[in-house]
């Protein structure tokens, strides 16, 4: 037996060795890159389509699972994915035929029409055998059922026509096709150990750290360029900036202000993209004095949206003049662009008999909302409206409009994520959402009717007109001051060609490639 000696010499040698190991960086990849590291700012939680928690989960799911149809690279147009054919045989019936030989990973066999039936019905129909109801049941609104005609063929039957079924359901998270057998066998573990047939398979998922995707060799569709995608959860924008500079990160989406310092960094591309999120200042039309249309019109005229955006977004976010941004069907191009007019605002207040008004402006306690709220407070002070800014953290803020609590709101600034569908964006403003997400408590039978008609209208031109008319009704109410649909700034290595559905809420990991 020998005695271990730990003397000064041994200590220095071990410290030196450790320092050398630290100084040596990871071996650099030579030749074309086979893997990339991307940043997400929310933690991945549930990779089961029926219970996903948001777009960050959805982005991973859409490459792990196949859908009947999916978006073309960098486009909102659809192409076939798992289906060899999809046919709308009537306003309420869609027939599909699967490509044969599409295999689920981990030995769960070939995808069949029965898997499609199971995948759609477990979200859209009431659960059987005490199973948990999906959080996304509303996505499959009007689903009567999926009929299996043969191993590869089936029919989706609706109770009513739905104009947006393809864009926001079939080609999105709720259209992901899971293996019936795998869901049954894995149970709750399916959320973190998903079994799909898509271009990538999940090889690791760790809380607060992220996930690793590896190319699925059995995928028969367009082969992804990168063998591996490492998805890192980095909540802090400053850390993201440093990781991009140091080369540890290859792709991130940042707020324009956070991305600004990276424009001068060699080797990085900074690319501004319009978003389809929407931010607005809303007014509670049930609560005096805002219940008076003239008071709301006065507030709208007293505000200067451009000044607010300069404060909140360093003028890097485009101004929004109506609910739907330009990329969405039914965007109202001729929507009025309100200019600040203090004199007219004062005369409207005088006509309403309103003086020395005091209102609260509810916002989320984030820097950009706080900056916009302070500008709004200063602008409204000029017409004699005193604003108290009420900044709340997320938990309290998102609860503020619920039930009777919502009756106490005066003004608020909020932001919702959008999708490439007008009805998805309009749905939060119908009267049925009062006490839920319609914080304006705005009840317009005319808007409700236009919303319902446009949801079932399959002719794009007629649908566009209905949606524009709905926005006109919103404008007349003066309950909304549209601010911005924001902007996303993509930051990536020069050799990367990123891919995402315009608006950049939905990313397309499988179509990320190398810049030519």
């Amino acid at each position, binding site marked *: 037996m020998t005695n271990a000696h730990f003397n000064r010499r041994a200590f220095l040698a071990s410290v030196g060795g450790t320092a050398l190991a630290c100084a040596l960086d990871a071996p650099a990849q030579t030749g074309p890159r086979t893997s990339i590291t991307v940043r997400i700012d929310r933690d991945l939680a549930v990779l089961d389509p029926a219970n996903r928690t948001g777009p960050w989960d959805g982005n991973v799911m859409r490459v792990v699972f196949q859908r009947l149809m999916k978006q073309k690279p960098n486009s909102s147009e659809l192409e076939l994915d798992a289906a060899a054919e999809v046919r709308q045989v009537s306003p309420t019936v869609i027939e599909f035929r699967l490509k044969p030989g599409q295999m689920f990973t981990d030995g769960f066999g070939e995808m069949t029409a029965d898997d499609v039936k199971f995948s759609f019905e477990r979200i859209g129909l009431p659960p059987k055998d005490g199973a948990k109801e999906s959080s996304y049941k509303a996505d499959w609104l009007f689903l009567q059922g999926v009929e299996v005609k043969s191993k590869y063929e089936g029919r989706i039957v609706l109770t009513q026509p739905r104009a947006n079924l393809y864009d926001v359901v079939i080609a999105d998270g709720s259209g992901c096709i899971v293996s019936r057998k795998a869901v049954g066998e894995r149970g709750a573990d399916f959320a973190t150990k998903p079994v799909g047939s898509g271009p990538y398979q999940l090889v690791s998922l760790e809380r607060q750290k992220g996930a690793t995707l590896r190319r699925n060799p059995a995928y028969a569709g367009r082969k992804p360029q990168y063998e591996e995608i490492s998805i890192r959860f980095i909540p802090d924008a400053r850390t993201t900036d440093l990781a991009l500079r*140091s080369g540890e990160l290859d792709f991130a989406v940042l707020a324009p202000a956070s991305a600004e310092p990276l424009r001068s960094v060699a080797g990085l591309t900074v690319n501004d993209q319009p978003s389809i999120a929407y931010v607005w200042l809303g007014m509670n039309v049930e609560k005096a004095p805002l219940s008076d249309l003239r008071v709301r019109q006065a507030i709208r005229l007293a505000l200067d949206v451009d000044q607010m955006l300069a404060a909140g977004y360093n003028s890097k976010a485009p101004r929004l003049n109506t609910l739907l941004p330009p990329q969405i069907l039914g965007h109202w191009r001729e929507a009025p662009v309100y200019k600040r007019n203090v004199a007219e605002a004062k005369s409207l207040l005088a006509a309403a008999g309103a003086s020395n008004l005091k209102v609260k402006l509810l916002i989320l306690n984030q820097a950009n909302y706080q900056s916009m709220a302070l500008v709004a407070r200063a602008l409204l002070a000029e017409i004699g409206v005193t604003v108290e800014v009420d900044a709340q953290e997320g*938990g309290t803020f*998102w609860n503020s409009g619920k039930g009777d609590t919502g009756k106490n709101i005066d003004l608020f600034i909020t932001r919702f*994520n959008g999708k490439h569908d007008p009805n998805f964006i309009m749905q939060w403003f119908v009267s049925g959402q009062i006490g839920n997400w319609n914080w304006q408590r705005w009840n317009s039978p005319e808007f409700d009717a236009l919303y319902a008609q446009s949801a079932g209208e399959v002719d794009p031109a007629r649908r566009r007109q209905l949606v524009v008319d709905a926005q006109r009704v919103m404008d007349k109410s003066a309950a909304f001051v549209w601010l911005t649909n924001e902007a996303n700034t993509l930051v990536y290595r020069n050799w990367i060609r990123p891919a995402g559905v315009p608006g950049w809420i939905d990313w397309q990991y499988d179509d990320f490639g190398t810049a030519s």
Partner: protein
Amino acid sequence: MSAGEGTRTAEAMRYLASRLVTTVLIVLGAMLLLFTLSAVVPGDPATTLLGPQATPELSRRFVTEMGLDQPLYIRLWRFFANALTGNLGTDVISGRPVAGLIGEVLPYTLILTFSAIGLAVAIGVPLGVFAATHRGSVADNVLAFISVAFIAVPSFVIAIFLLLIFAIWLDWLPVLGASRTGAFWDEARRMILPTLALALGWIGFIARLIRTSMLEVMAEPFIRTSRAFGLSRRLVTYKYALKNACIPTITILGMGVGRLLGGAVLVEIVFARPGLGRLIYQAISERNYPVVQGAVLVVVVLFVVVNLVVDLSYSAIDPRIRHDASRRGATG
């Protein structure tokens, strides 16, 4: 066994028993407080978690699943009964057991905490001794300045500076504080900056504390007597003075470990490193009560266990503490 030894053993057992009872009471009290805070905090978890997708029916179902529609006393009873059997509940987002989530991030927290405290002790103690034995010298003054500076600057600010210097300017170390692959060496080099960021403040603190305690102890008559008996300065300083001067430092270290277990959240965020602090922070903002309760409970248990070990260790260093405590216990 002699009568004296028997008395000492009985004393030690009484002391240990009293500390264990206190520990259990602290944990139970913390559980009660934790439950109460979760019950009174404003904000509805269904709204926060489900977002604009939430229909009223879905929100109601969610509340039922979380058991929030039950009377408070039933929720309290369930919380205690489950926690005492090791069931920390289910994460309402992923549906996974909370214990599993904590198990994933706990190693990161423990390694970071003990590395930081270990580094702080390894550097802070010698610096403190050096400052005490060179009282009033230039080196003492410089050390005092540096120590106070380290104490005053928040760890997340230090973290950002460390990143700028070592990861960006010098390009020696990585920005991200957790390895993608989990490989040992990669993990070790990614640990260096987070550990330094947390340790620097503690190095200053420990150095100041040791210096002050050493100066007090070295003025004691037994030190002079030891020197008068011809013992070397080195032996007196390190064996007698330092041992006695360590007691307040050990106490502070116990508190320090507790603070770092759940309180390193900003450093964890800056380095994008998993950890209990981040887990708790995220769960609070999502009103994910089972995760908040489970993770905080784990922090509390670890905290009281560490402090129990600390108590026992300084009673071992200074038997008067044990003797006094057990005598107080005996006389009520």
